[in-house]
């Protein structure tokens, strides 16, 4: 595939590219909190929990005889995915953990259980023949994107960015020093819940749009690369989003040109942005 071929076939990749750019920027922005709070597996666990919601929807639809491919708006799988992701977010916002079982282990356990439940449901005889379709719905494919997906992704991104723009100082303060925030009268549990709900909502929608692997990748790699390179918090957020946008666009091009899997290509391109920061560390930088 030549450059001309890529740009000439613009109509093929325009919508998936828009969705990928929206999802990548949103994940990379929220990922700064995830990396700083050292809860990197939260996004993987929430992807799986959101998947449980979708799988459960198809199973329930088969049980009650609902047409799962043309459900009424109030019984759409996206609500199930959102409900499970937001429920998981609320749980993780409580900083579950104990001196004998770290919070990160709890998140790992949630991931394992959710992934197993999805597999069990998908292999149920009731929906086995639809498993491929359900899998696409669960984890997206970043290639075929219906127009409604763009709207859902754009609205989600707008809401999440708006919440973070309005409450930027509160969310950062509570993430940085919850004890001090509590002494000043902040309801840290409520602020933490708000942060995790934005993360859960974004992951649920983005996973369905571009897939679990790129969502996990964009949540971790661009923020990590930005934290290695920038020394001011605003610069970290800006750089993280910039790296994610560049990775999504370049990754999509590489995938298109070399016929590689789209999500994996995006993640690999994003990983290249880690090189300057790691090289700086190797040279004895900060």
């Amino acid at each position, binding site marked *: 595939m030549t450059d001309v071929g890529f740009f000439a076939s613009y109509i093929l990749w325009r919508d998936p590219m828009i969705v990928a750019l929206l999802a990548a920027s949103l994940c990379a922005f929220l990922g700064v909190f995830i990396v*700083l709070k050292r809860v990197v597996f939260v996004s993987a666990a929430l992807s799986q929990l959101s998947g449980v919601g979708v799988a459960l929807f198809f199973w329930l639809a088969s049980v009650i005889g609902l047409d799962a491919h043309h459900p009424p708006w109030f019984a759409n799988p996206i609500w199930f995915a959102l409900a499970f992701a937001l429920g998981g977010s609320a749980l993780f916002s409580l900083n579950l953990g104990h001196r004998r079982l770290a919070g990160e282990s709890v998140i790992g356990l949630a991931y394992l259980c959710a992934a197993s439940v999805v597999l069990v449901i998908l292999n149920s005889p009731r929906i086995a023949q639809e498993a491929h379709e359900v899998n696409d719905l669960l984890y997206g494919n970043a290639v075929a994107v219906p127009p409604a997906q763009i709207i859902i992704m754009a609205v989600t991104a707008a809401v999440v960015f708006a919440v973070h723009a*309005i*409450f930027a*100082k*509160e969310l950062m*303060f509570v*993430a*940085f*020093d919850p*004890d*001090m925030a*509590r*002494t*000043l*009268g*902040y309801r840290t549990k409520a602020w933490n819940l708000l942060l995790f709900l934005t993360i859960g909502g974004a992951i649920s929608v983005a996973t369905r749009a571009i897939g679990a692997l790129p969502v996990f990748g964009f949540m971790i790699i661009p923020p990590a690369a930005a*934290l290695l390179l*920038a*020394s*001011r*918090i605003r*610069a*970290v957020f800006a750089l993280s989003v910039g790296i994610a946008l560049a990775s999504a666009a370049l990754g999509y091009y590489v995938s298109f040109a070399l016929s590689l899997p789209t999500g994996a290509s995006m993640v690999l391109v994003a990983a290249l942005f880690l090189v300057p920061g790691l090289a700086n560390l190797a040279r004895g930088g*900060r």
Partner: protein
Amino acid sequence: MDIIELHGVRVGYGKKPLLPPIDLSLGPGAFLGVVGPNGSGKTTLIRTMIGLLAPVAGEVRYPRGPRPAFGYVPQKGDIDLSFPLTAVEIVLMGRYPRIGRGRRPAAADRAAALRALAEVGVADLAPHAFHELSGGQRQRVLLARALAGEPEVLVLDEPTTGMDLPAERALLDQIAQFAEKGIAVLMVSHQLAAVANYAHDLCIVDRERQAVEFGPVEQVLTPARLTQLYGRPVAVETTRGYTTVFVADPPAGDGSPCTRRTSGAYPAVKP
């Protein structure tokens, strides 16, 4: 009128009390030092006093209103250095309750943050990344953050940990000045002598021995009470206005002289 009162308060986590019931009060300009061995319940006590933990029993009262304005300086290790924040961004956090939810800091808030940094002598560090500062500078920035909120009570949890003697002395001098200005100071330290030279009142806690001693420094800091509290012979000496406290081990019986283990010492110059 007192700012904080503890009435028969038992502190602990969950339903398990760590210490016997405690009655004490803290008024404006007071300087209370909370002292005890590592793991003795000091931090649990101050976290209860400032409302971060609910008491297992008894009552914490704030007679002046619903909740005093606290300025909190956490233990050194409690601050996450991976956040790329500058000194002035951290100090501004102390102003957040005054700024209001969902609103951005105004020029007046930035000016107040810079004033607080100047007050603790580190105005020049405002644009520097917090994680690049020395331990002493970080403590001063955190003290500035506590002051930026114009607190009624300044709460310091092991503020001098990891500092060299001159830096420790300078910081404690500064904290004492805030008490003179009418701010109540509540300071936790495992260094008995460090606190004894600055605090007006002492609260010595020892979870292992289930002991709590509270009162003016000159009453609590006596060899007899400390010996009883720690279960070992403890001596208190004052030299040129500075007090040192040390464990006075009895002679070994082999003719060697009595040994002393000081809990801290200060340059023999009083300002």
